[in-house]
């Protein structure tokens, strides 16, 4: 991203020219109707990102200033769920669905089966996210059960959207104009299938009571990440990384290995969120065992992506999308290794139930998933609309989000460890609260940087918007 020095090189000028040519040519070829709907997905996702992270910022401040804005609908216990659900469903999911609207048909060398289905799905989903925010802020929830806090009528909207996308994507893949189903579509379509099963199991009430519900909670919250966000993010990267680098993926076989091991290993490890709980010890041990097994799909993916990027340092430095992908890929590897380490019983003695886990959660969902999304958006949108974002502003977004995340994760990792040691020393509980105070403050500082970065991102997204309908009609008329 060091534009200042590279811009003076003639090589860099050539690069800029060639990028501009690629963008101009590809945007002519793209279907403006598909471009508009993708932009609507990304625009709404960005809106929810800003709303969701503002809620997150307020939650972070309340750790230091508990009486700040203490209206009922802004109280910590309600706002935390607003934050997590809005960034999960409103931002991350919607953005990846939007990117998939391009990746699924293009990886099949065909057109999207139905624009109308995609439009309908967007509005059902938006209604769900908005109703979810209002309900959670009013104290209406499905128990304090992470990421299944939406009440069941909203889950019906959730399921309906997944089904619409499944119909759309499956028919697109069936109509593919190539023999093989490209690996990105293995991951993306499966994510929709798996999450439909996952949500149904989580929301059916009549077989889970008391501790039985906790068994499902571990399975659900873990696989929400593992069978929805991860396969979507990895699948999209299998499409976008080769596209942006203009070279094939390093190893197709590693992608296939990653797919099957992800499916088998990830599904089994939810109980590692309840180590030392009264959930049967055998389930806990299986979860720990396969958490170690997770290193196979994680390094198959990370290694594959890094080897695909190998030797492209010059290109990555000058690109404004590839640095985001690089941070996302590296975070995927490191944060997942961290997750495996946290699963062991010894690590649980120190870190379980502390702020350390919250740092880990942000390392994965933000460092890994959000950065891959940004890489995808900055790489894709200019190709669709022919408009580039202001390069300096992309740099500002990149560094605010990267530095913000680094501060966030380091602060909570150190603070969480101290919290754990306070409990082990059997000091009075309140000492673990006061000891965390400076680290909570630093976490809020990191969070504020991230939020500012999102505002800059929203500004950049606006610069990449497609031309208005009237302008396009005029252009088309002029050419005819």
């Amino acid at each position, binding site marked *: 991203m060091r534009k200042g020095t590279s811009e003076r090189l003639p090589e860099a000028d050539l690069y800029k020219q060639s990028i501009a040519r690629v963008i101009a040519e590809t945007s002519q070829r793209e279907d403006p109707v598909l471009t508009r709907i993708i932009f609507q997905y990304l625009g709404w996702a960005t809106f929810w990102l800003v709303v969701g992270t503002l809620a997150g910022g307020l939650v972070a401040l309340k750790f230091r200033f*508990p*009486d700040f804005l*203490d209206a*009922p609908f802004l*109280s*910590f*216990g*309600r706002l935390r*769920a607003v934050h997590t659900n809005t960034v999960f469903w409103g931002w991350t999911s919607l953005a990846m669905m939007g990117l998939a609207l391009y990746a699924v048909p293009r990886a099949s060398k065909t057109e999207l089966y139905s624009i109308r289905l995609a439009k309908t799905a967007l509005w059902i989903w938006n209604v769900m996210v908005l109703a979810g925010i209002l309900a959670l802020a009013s104290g*209406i*929830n499905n*128990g*304090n059960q*992470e990421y299944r806090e939406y009440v069941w009528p909203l889950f019906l909207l959730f399921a309906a959207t997944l089904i619409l996308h499944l119909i759309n994507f499956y028919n697109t*893949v069936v109509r593919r104009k190539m*023999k*093989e*189903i490209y690996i990105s579509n293995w991951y993306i*379509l*499966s994510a929709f*299938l*798996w999450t439909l*099963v*996952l949500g149904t*199991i989580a929301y059916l009430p009549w*077989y*889970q*009571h*008391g*501790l*039985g*519900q*906790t*068994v*499902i*909670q571990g*399975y659900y919250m873990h696989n929400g990440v593992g069978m929805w966000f991860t396969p979507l993010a990895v699948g999209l990267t299998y499409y976008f990384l080769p596209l942006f680098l203009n070279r094939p993926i390093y190893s197709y076989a590693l992608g*296939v290995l990653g*797919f099957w091991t992800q*499916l*088998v290993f990830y*599904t089994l490890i939810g109980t590692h*969120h*309840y180590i*030392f*709980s*009264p959930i*049967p010890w055998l*389930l806990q041990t299986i979860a720990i065992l396969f958490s170690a097994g997770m290193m196979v799909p994680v390094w198959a993916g990370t290694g594959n992506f890094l080897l695909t990027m190998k030797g492209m340092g010059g290109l990555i430095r000058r690109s404004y999308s590839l640095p985001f992908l690089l941070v996302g890929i590296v975070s995927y590897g490191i944060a997942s290794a961290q997750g495996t380490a946290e699963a062991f019983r010894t690590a649980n*003695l120190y870190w*379980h*139930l*502390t*702020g350390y886990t919250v740092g880990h959660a942000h390392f994965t969902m933000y460092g890994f998933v959000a950065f891959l999304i940004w890489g995808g958006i900055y790489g894709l949108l200019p190709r669709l609309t022919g408009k580039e974002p202001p390069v300096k502003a992309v740099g500002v977004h990149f560094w605010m989000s990267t530095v913000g995340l680094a501060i966030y994760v380091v602060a909570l990792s150190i603070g969480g460890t101290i919290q754990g040691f306070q*409990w*082990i020393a059997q000091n009075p*509980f*309140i000492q673990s*609260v*006061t000891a965390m105070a400076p680290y909570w403050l630093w976490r809020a500082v990191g969070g504020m940087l991230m939020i500012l970065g999102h505002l800059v991102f929203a500004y950049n997204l606006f610069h990449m918007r497609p031309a208005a309908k009237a302008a396009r009609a005029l252009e088309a008329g002029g050419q005819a």
Partner: protein
Amino acid sequence: MNFHTNPRLLYLTSFLIFVALSLAIAVFPAIEASRVPPTPGLMPFSSTAQRGREIYVSEGCSYCHTQQVRPIPADQVFGRPSAAGDYAYSTPQLLGTERTGPDLINIGNRQPSSTWQLIHLYNPRAVVKESIMPSFWWYFQLKDQAGPGDVVVPVPDPWKPKGKAVVATPDALALLDYLLALKQPVLGTTATGTGK
């Protein structure tokens, strides 16, 4: 017929593997865990306590307060290690994944004072200076003059609003009932139904 060229085969296989593994690792163990009988001596919640429990859930209390004592020394302060039967009457489950505040599975035994609990709900910092818990002032009424039958909360200065009486609403009293009902039955003794 292979995964690379046959979408029906590919997606059906990935779907069925996920369903089979989910049944084995989550659904069947959950059915079994749901059938664990209550720990001897565990009392079902009264209707008021149950109402209090719903408020507890609605306010997201368990994002900071776990309800599980692990069999490790660090958790001894909260009570005996939790057993599966302790949760027989607890749906939605509230074991929690983060412990910013203390564990509450046995709070009825550890802090049985109604007065302390009510002041703490009204403003936690009035009893624990360093606390960062939200104050749940909206479950209390400020009255110029407390009426007969009102439960007046003796909030100390300077947290007490000047010239006003802090009165607990029925919701606050329900929440209190729930907190006081959170008691771990003692293991290894014959249940008498009276608890501890």
